[in-house]
Structures are given as C-alpha cells and as structure tokens.
C-alpha cells in the first residue's frame, strides 16, 4: 500500500492564533443577546419586572424561531421563497386547538401529565396535517416554479389565500377563543418574579428544538447532505444522493414546524384566526433575513433578539414597539448586509 508521493511538499502548517477582534467577530451575533438583556436591565431598573419581560421575550422569540426555522432551511436549501408558510401556521393552530377542544377532559383536569398529554396530542395532529399539506403544496405549487422567484411569490401567496379561505370554510369565519389547559394557566414564582408557566414551557420547547436541529444538521448524514446541497446540489447528486427527496423532506419538515409553531402561538395568544399565520410572517421574514438565509443559528438568535426587543420596548416606550423590529432589521443589515450568520450567499 505504498503510494509514491514524491512531489508532495511536507505540510507542517502553523496556525496563527486568532486576534481578539477576529474571535469577537465570529461570536458577535451570540453576544448581542446578553448585551441586549443587560441594556434592558439597566433601562428597566427593577429586577422582577425585567425578569418577567425577559422570559416573556424569550418565549415569544422561541415561538417565532419554531416558525422561522423551517422557512430558513427551505430558503437556504431550495432557494424557494414560500409565503405559503403562514398558511401552515394557521392550519396548525386550528387543527391543534380542535384536538384540544375534543380532549376537554384532559385539558380541564388539574393534572400536569394529562394537560401535557393533551397538548402533545394536539401538536402531533397539527404537525401531521401541516406536514401532509406541505407535501402536497410542494408537489402541486412549488415544483413547477423552482428557480423562478417572482413566480414563487405569486404562486405561494395564492396558495396562502386559498388555504386561509379553506379555514373559513371548515371552521367558520370567526376568531376562536380558547383557554389553556388547567396547569398551564397559572404563574410560577421564580427568583422573585411571577412568570407565566406556559412561557417557561415555550422556552423549553424552543431550546430543545434548536439543539435537535443543530445536532441533525451537524452530526447526521442527512444534515451533511442538506448543508452540502445548499452549496452545490449537482455535486451532491453526482455522489449518489437523491437531492429531490431531500428537498421534499426539508419542505415537509419546515411545514410541520410551522404547524408546531401555530399551536404554540395559538395557546400563547388564546385566540386563533385564519389570518394569524399571515400576520406572523412579517416577523418570521424579519428573523430569517437578519439571521442570514439558510442559517438555523442565525434564525435562533434573530428570533430571540426580536422577542426581547419587542417586550423591552413595549414596556419602556410603547409607541416605539411597532417600529422596533424594523429598526432592528435596519441596524443589523447595516452591520452585516447578508444577515448575521449567512449560509447562502446572495446570488
């Protein structure tokens, strides 16, 4: 097994230590979160208020992340702008809430296990329906318009409108009010502040999802294929992988996550409407853009920034709350025009 490599130069590279500036630049987006939290603490002044606002902001951010994570992957891997994503959020919420309504005995019981069981059933049903819907959506609407952005926007907005109207047909035109399961209604006292239990649950779910997605993308072969496919799909196929299947799988996964986000958001707001997904899409797009197209980490940080900022500003200067997200997007894009951690370079 001796291979002549007479021409190969000896490689003994030395690695220069990164300068403090380079190190900082790499992790700067991650540092934005604690910086924002500290600035918030300084301006708000009182610990319990700050803690309540922070947990609330993190919870909101986590839910936005759940909705945005699928979209950023679809964006990055398939170069598809899918406005129909909002419809999956709404459908997820309606299916999930319907299941919860059907499990009234479980949600009404003062048992955490039964309550969580009911929410779990709702989530699974919502994800199954939105996953199937996403599969059909990709097949019928998106497949003919790969590579054509303008057509993607037109066709997916059309799909969004049709699905919203279908919700009106099935569930009626009115908004639906709901109450959370018994044990998720109250507050938990923590470090001197009263925090809604449901928000803690949302934070945990978001964190678990983030870690799981990172593991899948970094440690599994599917993740490798997705990351390689973002860069050079042709070569991935030449290595023997069916990129088509990976595309469809990613689209379906993104749709199921939208469904999960829809259920979580519905339970958070305690009211659902057919247009709720469409309304969320503005925040979701802001998060995907400031995070950097295709980046799950970027979307995670972006979503938490949006959530925190919105809650702080709403408390400190309520009138500014409406523009805070657009302001954040402007600031970040002036700093990093391709978003914080771009995976896909602008084409």
């Amino acid at each position: 097994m001796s291979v002549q490599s007479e021409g190969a130069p000896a490689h003994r590279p030395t690695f220069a230590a990164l300068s403090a500036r380079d190190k900082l630049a790499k992790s700067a987006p991650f540092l934005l979160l604690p910086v924002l939290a500290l600035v918030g603490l300084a301006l708000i002044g009182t610990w319990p208020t700050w803690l309540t606002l922070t947990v609330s902001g993190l919870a909101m951010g986590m839910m936005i992340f759940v909705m945005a994570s699928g979209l950023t992957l679809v964006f990055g891997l398939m170069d598809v702008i899918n406005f129909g994503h909002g419809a999956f959020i709404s459908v997820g919420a309606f299916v999930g809430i319907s299941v919860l309504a059907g499990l009234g005995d479980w949600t009404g019981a003062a048992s955490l296990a039964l309550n969580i069981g009911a929410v779990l059933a709702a989530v699974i049903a919502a994800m199954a329906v939105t996953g199937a819907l996403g599969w059909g959506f990709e097949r019928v609407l998106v497949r003919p318009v790969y590579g054509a952005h303008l057509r993607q926007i037109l066709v997916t907005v059309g799909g969004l409108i049709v699905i919203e109207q279908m919700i009106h047909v099935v569930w009626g035109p009115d908004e639906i009010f709901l109450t959370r399961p018994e044990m998720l209604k109250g507050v938990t006292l923590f470090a001197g502040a009263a925090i809604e239990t449901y928000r803690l649950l949302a934070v945990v779910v978001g964190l678990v999802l983030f870690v799981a997605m990172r593991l899948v993308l970094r440690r599994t072969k599917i993740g490798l294929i997705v990351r390689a496919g973002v860069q050079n799909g042709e070569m991935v196929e030449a290595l023997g992988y069916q990129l088509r299947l990976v595309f469809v799988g990613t689209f379906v996964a993104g749709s199921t996550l939208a469904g999960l986000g829809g259920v979580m958001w519905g339970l958070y707001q305690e009211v659902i409407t057919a247009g709720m997904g469409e309304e969320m899409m503005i925040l979701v797009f802001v998060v995907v853009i400031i995070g950097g197209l295709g980046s799950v980490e970027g979307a995670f940080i972006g979503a938490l920034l949006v959530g925190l900022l919105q809650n702080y500003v709403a408390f400190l200067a309520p009138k500014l709350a409406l523009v805070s997200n657009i302001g954040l997007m402007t600031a970040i894009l002036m700093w990093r025009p391709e978003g914080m951690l771009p995976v896909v370079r602008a084409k």
Partner: protein
Amino acid sequence: MSEPILTLEGVETDIGRYHILSGVDLEVPRGQVTMLLGRNGVGKTTTLRSVIGHWRAKSGRILFDGQDITRMPTPAIARMGLGFVPEDMGIFSDLTVEENMTLAAASGPLSPKRRDRIFAAFPPLATFWRASAGTLSGGQKQMLSIARAMAEERRLYLIDEPTKGLAPAIVSTMAAALRELKREGASILLVEQNFAVARTLGDRAAVMEGGRIVWTGAMAELATDAKLQSRLLGLSVEGV
C-alpha cells in the same frame, strides 16, 4: 477482449441553443486509462457531464457496464459505481475535509483502510482533516476532489482536468495517485490537457474535435508520432 465498461454511441448533447456534441462514439475499455484529449471547447467536459447525467444527451445511447444509462437520473448512475471529479472540483467549502469524505462514501462509512490509503496519497488531507474545505489551497482542493472519488470502490472514474492550474510538484502528486489507481486495475476516463502527464498515464487515447471523436488508438502511438500530435492537438514539436 472483454466488453467495454463504458460505451457511447452517437451521443448528441445541446446546451441551450448550442450544439456541443454531434455524435460521440467512444469505448472505454475495462481496467485501462483512456485519455480524452483535444483543444479547448471541443466537448470533452460535455462528454463527461453527459455520462454522469448533468446534461442530458438529446440522442444516442450511453451504456455503463452493459446497462443503458442515457435517461437514468444522476444519483442512480453514481450509485452504479461511477466516481466523478468535475472540472471545478465541486468541493463543499463550508464542510470540513472529513465531512466531504463522509459524504463521498455514499453507501457506508469510510473504511479506515481507505482513509489511510488516501492519506498516503495526499498527506495534506490528513493535516487539514478537520479544517473547513474552503480554506484549502487550489492543489489541496483538487486532492480532496480526487480523494472523494476514491472514497469507495468504483467501477469507473470520470476525471476532468485534475492538473489544471497546479504547480509542478502538485501535478506529480496527482499523477502518482492516478498511477496507483491504475495499478489496482481501475477503469478511468481522464480529460487531461497536460500532454506530459497524459502520455505517462494513458493506455488508450481518444481525440475530440468539433463535438466528435476524430481519432482513437494506443496512447503510445500518439505519444511517439509528433506529426499526429500536431495535427490532432496542435502540439508543436514532440509534446513538452
């Protein structure tokens, strides 16, 4: 002689409005290195891309080990045991060298034996195993690209200009690795502009001109016939 590993019969391929291949007939024998030669723009890369299915042949037939692959999707062709090294190397630059190799071993984990063999042929890949492939030099990227093709047992290698733009020291590393592959009995279809490399590696040669094969024969014959070289390849004197 046994049946060729790859046969092209009257293959025509268009790219957009451009007629690139106009009836390519080519046989790649088993266990030999076939050099695909010719001036720039005569259709060598298009021929390789038509075989792997990146560009579809409009007419004609492509047989791989006796099976018609003309209309087969690219992943299926690759899974039949075809290792492809594209002209642009096709490196996944955001992934590490290790991750590039993991992907290349499509049907299972990269065996330690193969990994060691690759390290022996291309020592820099061992050094930069966990580095991002985007940070490699041009020569190292080319090594990685060939190493990916060697990550599994392949029935045929399609290699497009492995020495393009490389320093002479790296060129001889490439040539040594390809010679090793050849010694193991691999079947290779190799596009190569560097005639000095081509004459040492090739068993057979096929010369393209204007989208078709205009000459085939033993490499030794072409290597010793300066007039033929000059006529077919525009090489002056006895080829570098």
